[in-house]
């Protein structure tokens, strides 16, 4: 069943284009250090060449004979090396040129390299959040939906409460308090505000499946709970779980960019969002520096579109009515 799902996913035109697009970004992210012309936080090129090396004659300090066939001597040699170092500083706030395809930012960092390396962070944060939230919401949904009872009441209640608390303001408030080391805090904060919606969605799906005849039949035969969950219910939830994964990843990428843009995230990390932060902080628009703020936004949109296309494909697979005739 799972294999069929993926086969169908690849055949559907929309999801295929989405997957290809996503694949492209993943490849860029994986090979980023090789693809970026310069390290993203460098602002100069240094050339160091050895011009001269002088080696003096050895100066003997001590000579000893040890026994009949051995001799030991200690001597010093002084080596003088002369280097020539040229430091070429990148221009700051430069327009696109041969050396810098997308120009440079306020600190002289090459923007093209930043964008390529930023792919790693943005994609990683997005997908990691997606994975984490999907795992949590699926677990909660299964516990709550399948086991029912008090556990269900408690989990549903908590979910409903956090569902209505607006996500962005909450993220901002938590984000300003939490010290930002690396990207883990951002992933956690994004996850904290994303888990309610998928949990609720998946829970209702679990409930629907639980009451389907084929599950009840298995239960009546006496199959154990774990079997029912993993072999009967879960395989029938693949499309909706995958759809949620991509939805959450999409909003995580947007969320990360937004948080960084406001300045709440970790602005020392290089991601598409931080590039935009610095662009805004340096008045890129007022300078007309379209090469600074246009590319990151476009890339975020393209990544988002990839996810949306994949989801369109998943929708059409699970709901044939949505397909074009």
């Amino acid at each position: 069943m799972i294999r069929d799902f993926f086969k169908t996913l690849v055949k559907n035109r929309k999801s295929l284009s989405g997957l290809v697009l996503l694949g492209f970004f993943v490849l860029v992210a994986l090979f980023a250090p090789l693809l970026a012309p310069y390290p993203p936080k460098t602002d100069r090129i240094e050339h160091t060449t050895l011009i001269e090396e002088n080696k003096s004659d050895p100066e003997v300090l001590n000579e000893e004979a040890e026994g009949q066939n051995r001799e030991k001597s200690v001597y010093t040699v002084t080596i003088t090396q002369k280097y020539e170092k040229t430091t070429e500083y990148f221009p700051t706030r430069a327009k696109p040129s041969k050396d810098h395809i997308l120009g440079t930012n306020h600190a002289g960092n090459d923007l093209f390299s930043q964008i390529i390396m930023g792919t790693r962070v943005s994609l990683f944060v997005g997908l990691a959040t997606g994975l984490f939230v999907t795992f949590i919401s699926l677990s909660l949904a299964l516990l709550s939906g399948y086991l029912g009872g008090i556990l269900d009441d408690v989990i549903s209640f908590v979910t409903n409460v956090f569902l209505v608390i607006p996500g962005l303001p909450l993220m901002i408030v938590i984000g300003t308090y939490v010290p930002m080391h690396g990207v883990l805090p951002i992933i956690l904060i994004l996850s904290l505000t994303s888990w309610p919606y998928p949990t609720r969605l998946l829970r209702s799906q679990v409930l629907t499946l639980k009451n389907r005849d084929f599950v009840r039949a298995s239960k009546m035969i006496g199959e154990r709970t774990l079997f029912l969950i993993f072999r009967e219910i879960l395989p029938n939830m693949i499309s909706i779980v995958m759809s949620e994964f991509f939805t959450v990843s999409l909003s995580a990428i947007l969320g990360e960019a937004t948080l960084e843009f406001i300045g709440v995230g970790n602005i020392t990390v290089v991601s598409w969002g931080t590039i935009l932060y610095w662009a805004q902080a340096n008045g890129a628009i007022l300078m007309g520096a379209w090469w600074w703020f246009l590319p990151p936004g476009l890339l975020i949109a393209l990544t988002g579109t990839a996810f949306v296309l994949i989801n369109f494909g998943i929708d059409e697979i699970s709901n044939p009515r949505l397909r074009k005739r």
Partner: protein
Amino acid sequence: MKYLARKFGMLIFTLFVSMSINFFLPRLMPGDPAKALMDRMEGVEAEKLESVRAAFGLDTKDSLPVQYGKYLLNTVKGDLGISLSRFPMPVSSVLASALPWTIGLMGLCTIIGFSIGTLLGIWAAWKRQTKLASFTVGFFTFIRSFPYFWLGLFLIYIFSFKLKVFPLGGAFSVDQTRGSAGWWLSVVQHGILPAFTITLSSIGAWLLMMRNNMINVLAEEFITLAIAKGLPMQRIRLMYAARNAILPSVTGFAMSFGFIVGGGLITEMVFAYPGMGYMLYQAVNAKDYPLMQAIFLIIAASVLVANFLADIAIMLLDPRVRDGAK
């Protein structure tokens, strides 16, 4: 009635949870944010220091539960503390100046976005075989993938910077006297781009949702019966299809209202529109914790109220909910 009472109870409880988050968050953070903040503020007056300590609950000899109780009481009374970045203005006054702008902008855009999006969704579902409908759906889907703020930046670049048609930011022209006709005109002029940004981004969501709902409803048997009865297409489209398809949209609206508000906040930040969003942006940068938390609370409260209103709407629209059948 029981339905409404239950929903109202949830509203109050969630509000309570939000206030609690506000209270416990600074006290839970590692390190000592108050001290860090105070270290940063050199040569600070004694009163300001007092407020900072009060905001973090460091000064009182009261036990935690007492602090909590006082905080809840104060919040309900409307005393949200003193703003650190605009000392000694109380937070509530700062909010009062920003609130009307946000309500005006967001309120207008939400109504327009929802209406246009829903109508387009109905049309896109009805005519879904046509190329125009597919293109419209695709176009808005693509727009939705752009981060809200980037769309705003892009529009500013094109219309304000390059074409110089609209102003670069703010909500009104400072050259005009407040309340004059010219001033109102400038309000409209300043409001067009931000409104356009928010509306454009949100239409996509409504469109897609309504379209999907319509497609699902059109496959239902009662549509077949309506056709069999020989009813005019207009009536089938509205009273049979759309009337049923809009129910999940209203529910969806309630659930995503928080997200829309988020988008509106960001747009304000980009356009320096003096509403809650921009105020939040400034508060974050100035580390004005009392103001920040108050804004969070107000936003949470408005989202909750909007949700409650949507719940009422559902009750009016769906007879099954009225009888508690759902």
